């Protein structure tokens, strides 16, 4: 084929230009560490990388959310643990007060001590986080949740709101607990029912907290669970009847309570079961309690399904009972002991409620840890993927650089040789 001289030069230079632009590109890849310099280099990889960038950013942000959640939960947990300590000390004081040998002065000083704990507990309940937000006011983080005193009672001004954080791609975790759950909704008595002496009792009878032996039977109680036990003393024999408060009938006879003496005989300290015995009409409420001391005629104790009461009210009741004193009066001592027994039960319920909250928090904290481990695993995967999509493989790039360098040199040298050939070199002279 005929070759024009122009073609020799054109082909030679375009070859050189192409070789050096390839070389430049490889050099650029090496100096930036990126395989994909512009989306056009690998459109699919660039688009995928953008998507992964976003997922990775979300994952990173969730790690920050988890860190914030962990610290928020940790802070709240420490506050609740303080509250638990305060309750434990109050509990000790109540036991101390109940040992029987206390003068009114001693009781008052115990009451003063408990008042101190009460203030401490109010402080905990009104505590704020690092941003100045109240921890236990639900959504109302700028509203002081608890206000009041033992005398006036404590009211809750927060709400039931529970703040959540996005800690995983499909997991929102609560990071706060409203004060209503932590301090307000405590069951009274033994958690199922409460025993309360009639205020007009004159005997020295003291009730324990009682217990439910058959939950199904207790829950099935036809009247919703409201009874009372009434005592009578005739000829030094104490008898009692159990009355359904709703129907007004005796459980033991099925009819309206008759005149004393009553169907069952009272033995100090024996347990009284709410189930039929002997020839009594059949009934079984699955509950029992025991009463110690000497009830007087007409004394009664009511048994009601547990209600809810705040921990502050529980403490207030105890303090008020302690401060009322006994003045050595057996009926007053019985009232105090009944109050202390009920108080102890309520404090136990409160402690249990706090423990429940703490264990919930613990579960959240450990879930956060698990999510963290998962999150960093996933992050590593994303990094690997991004690197595979975008980053240059140095080994192959360096070997390519050397190769392209060789090609360019060969092209340069061969071009010089070919372009130097001309017949004119030999004409004339």
């Amino acid at each position: 084929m005929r070759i024009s001289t122009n073609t020799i030069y054109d082909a030679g230079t375009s070859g050189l230009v192409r070789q050096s632009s390839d070389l430049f590109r490889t050099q650029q890849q090496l100096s930036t560490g990126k395989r994909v310099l512009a989306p056009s280099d690998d459109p699919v990889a660039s688009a995928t990388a953008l998507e992964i960038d976003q997922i990775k950013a979300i994952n990173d942000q969730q790690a920050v959310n988890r860190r914030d959640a962990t610290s928020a939960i940790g802070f709240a947990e420490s506050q609740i643990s303080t509250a638990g300590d305060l309750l434990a000390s109050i509990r000790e004081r109540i036991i101390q007060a109940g040992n029987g040998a206390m003068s009114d002065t001693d009781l008052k000083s115990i009451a003063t001590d408990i008042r101190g704990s009460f203030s401490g507990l109010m402080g905990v309940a009104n505590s704020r986080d690092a941003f100045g937000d109240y921890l236990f006011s639900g959504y109302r983080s700028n509203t002081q949740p608890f206000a009041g005193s033992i005398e006036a009672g404590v009211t809750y001004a927060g709400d039931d709101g529970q703040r959540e954080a996005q800690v995983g791609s499909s997991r929102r975790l609560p990071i706060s607990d409203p004060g209503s759950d932590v301090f307000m909704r405590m069951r009274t008595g033994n958690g199922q029912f409460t025993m309360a002496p009639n205020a007009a009792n004159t005997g020295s009878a003291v009730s324990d907290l009682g217990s439910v032996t058959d939950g199904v039977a207790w829950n099935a109680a036809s009247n919703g669970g409201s009874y009372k036990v009434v005592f009578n003393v005739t000829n030094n024999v104490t008898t009692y009847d159990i009355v359904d408060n709703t129907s007004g009938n005796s459980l033991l006879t099925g009819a309206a309570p008759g005149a004393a003496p009553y169907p069952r005989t009272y033995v100090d300290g024996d347990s009284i079961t709410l189930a039929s015995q002997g020839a009594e009409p059949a009934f079984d409420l699955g509950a029992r309690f025991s009463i110690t001391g000497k009830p007087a005629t007409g004394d009664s104790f009511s048994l009601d399904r547990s209600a809810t009461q705040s921990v502050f009210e529980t403490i207030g009741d105890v303090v008020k009972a302690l401060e009322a004193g006994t003045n050595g009066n057996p009926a007053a001592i019985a009232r105090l002991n009944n109050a202390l027994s009920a108080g102890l039960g309520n404090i136990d319920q409160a402690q249990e409620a706090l423990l429940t909250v703490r264990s919930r928090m613990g579960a959240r904290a450990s879930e956060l840890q698990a999510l963290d481990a998962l999150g960093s695993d996933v992050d590593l995967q994303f990094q690997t993927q991004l690197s595979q999509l975008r980053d240059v493989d140095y080994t192959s790039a360096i070997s390519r650089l050397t190769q392209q360098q060789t090609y360019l040199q060969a092209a340069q040298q061969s071009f010089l040789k070919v372009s130097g050939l001309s017949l004119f070199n030999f004409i004339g002279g």
Partner: protein
Amino acid sequence: MGTQLYNIGITGLNAAQAGLITTGHNISNASTPGFSRQQVILGTNDPQLTGSGFLGQGARVETVRRVYSQFLTAQVMEAQTQNAEYASYSDQISALDNLLADQEAGLSPAMSDFFDAIQSVSSSPTSLASRQSVISSAQAMTTRFNTLGQRLDQVSASLNGQISGAVTEINQLVSQIATYNDQIAVAQSTTGSTRLANDTLDARDKLITQLNEVVRVTQLAQSDGSINLFIGNGQPLVVGGSSFNLTATPSLEDPSRTEVTYTAPGGAVLRLQEDTITGGKLGGLLAFRRDTLDNAQNALGRVAIGFAEQFNAQHKLGQDLNGAAGTNFFNVLAGKALPSALNSTVAAAQVNVTISNSSDLTTSDYRLTYDGTTYTLTRQSDNVSWSAATLGGLPPAGSPQGFTLDSGSTTLAAGDAFLIQPTRSGSIDLRTVLTDPRMLAMAMPVATSATLANTGTGAISAGSVTSTTGLPLAGNITLTFDATNNVFNVTGGPGGTLAFNPTTDSGGVSYTLAGQGGFTFQMSGTPRNGDSFVIKANASGQGDNRNLLALAALQDKKTLAGGATGFQGAYAQMVAEIGAKAREVKVNQTAQGVLLSRVTESQQSLSGVNLDEEAANLLRYQQAYQAAGKMIELASRLFDTLLNIGG
């Protein structure tokens, strides 16, 4: 006899001289662009008839012709015009490609930063500093949207300038070609078709090649040697010695867009259909604008509009730090309707384009026409059109396009046309309008609570609002459980009852109060008879972050293109489309470059000058010249011989 010998010798000298001159011409023009090597064509003189037969009378130069193939030259021109189109497309698109390549300058990091800032508020919804950072990062993100949009606008504006430049170049070239046509026709009429004006023909071919590098033209050779050139659908640019001009003018529909018009022989101005102008630099510019830039602007605008609309909608469901309902976070974006310059100036109708649902938006532009009775809307990406008797009936409810049209207080005149651009300017127009950090609506306006005295295990979820209907709540709504009938009696709000059977429903049942903000909540557990739950206004709920979580969830929610993709996905799709197109053009350009060098080689192989060959010719003609000279010397000596006989 002596004279004859002299004469033959001189014809040889002349022939050799012509050969030397032509070779010299070839050597001198070896690197002249468009030059075809020339050859001297020799013939024998008419022989003399003698008694012993014909006696040769020497040589004569028949013609000097260029070594040329119409076919190969046409191939080079075609390859050239295609190559120039790819090159100009590639120049333009690589600017976009590089703009989007920057990981830091792109839109993605700005969007991620914005959502990060939102999430950071979740642990401290009352912190004004965290809230301020949301607004700051929103402003940074809107600025990024604006910058990208403006950058695309600048590209579009610079295209206008380049299109005008290309048109000027075309006009200059066609008038020069027409002049050459004239010269060639005149020359050919005197010399006839066998003796051509080689160098003028080469010069004209070179101009036609240059013209093809600007735009593709079709050629038609005429018998008088001139060449007629046509563009587009066959509009003549050059006919013989006359040329016709193109003009770059603002489009009638969109004044910001330069179009190419053609002034026909009669003087009438014709709009050239854009996709018929192909090849060359101009073809590349127009194709880039049509296929890539318009799409990119619309796609980016759609992300901006979708972002603003969805975020605003969720934000308005919320409640701010002052307890007020959320307001627009970003400005409300609207589409554009550009009236045609030919529209009736009497009616001066205006059309408003309101975005109704960003998830239905496409990235196409639309054309609206009115013929006096019927409105017709045509989607330009695929030419699907809809007609309706009223403007409000477009686009039809059955094929939502994400926007609605109205003409406000004006009325369209018959023959009016509008270019509808729903998303074109979205990215440039986006602004953050919320500036007070207290007005970030991170809470929800409705809260729930369980009455403290409840003794069952029933629970009510925090719930969420899904509309603004009936908000703020007129009063508290109390749900009281009736264990006999297994229902919640509802006091306040919608009233009535909600069925709930603890035996089967304790795992949780959802309810929605449509008239009360579409409030959706869940009841679970086992409530005891008489237990009550309250749904009420979220008074003082500064610590509530429910709406914040809902806003943050928008980040990867698939809300665009009918739920097929999210904001980030739509942006990634745009980047991928531009990247893929840039790659395609680059690959085509490389392939076309190879093709161009192949056909150029073939053409040069025929017409190009090879200096070695010319050197050999030089020697050949030199020797021929010397030989002819020797012959004259010999003739002289022969003559002397005769003279000497006499002496």
